[in-house]
């Protein structure tokens, strides 16, 4: 299983590992979203005003 699940099962604490993983996924998806928005602005169709 994943690293967070291993840590959670080992320490019998589930709140912290899974919350941190959730935060990580949020932090990782925000740059992807910003990158996508920048690419769209540079190469994409002009937006309707």
């Amino acid at each position: 299983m994943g690293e967070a699940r291993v840590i959670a099962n080992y320490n019998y604490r589930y709140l912290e590992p899974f919350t941190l993983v959730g935060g990580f996924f949020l932090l990782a998806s925000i740059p992807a979203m910003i990158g996508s928005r920048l690419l769209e602005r540079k190469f994409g169709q002009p937006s309707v005003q």
Partner: protein
Amino acid sequence: MEWNWQFALQILPDLARALLTVEITVVASALAICGVSPCFSCAYRHTGRFRRLPIVLSRRSGISLSPLTTGIIGIAVYNSAYLSEAYRGAVLSVNKVQIEAAVACNLGRYATWRYVIIPQALPPLIPVLGNYVIAMLKETPILSAITVLELY
């Protein structure tokens, strides 16, 4: 259960070790966007087969590769089946008159694709590609089913 900051800080280095998730996402996205999706767009018959497959089964290929490689290929192939439809839609959105004009200008098949179809098909495709990259990032926890020790 109360939040324990000390424990959270203690496990942070262990979680940081498992940043394999980002690596999997980057490689699988590159593979899906550049390699497999265009192939699927050409082999339209196989697209439906992979779209009907549950995502967990796409990791069980039966070929002896390392779990990480199998996982990356699985994610790439699974998402490529969906991405190829986006590619097809983008190409179909190019006005047919443009292609007829390219033929009338005596452009070859390659030149038509390179200078007429792809430049017009790419802009509407970019937001869709962004969505799929984020979707791939969120699908990586499924790799824990085949013993890839990633983040979740």
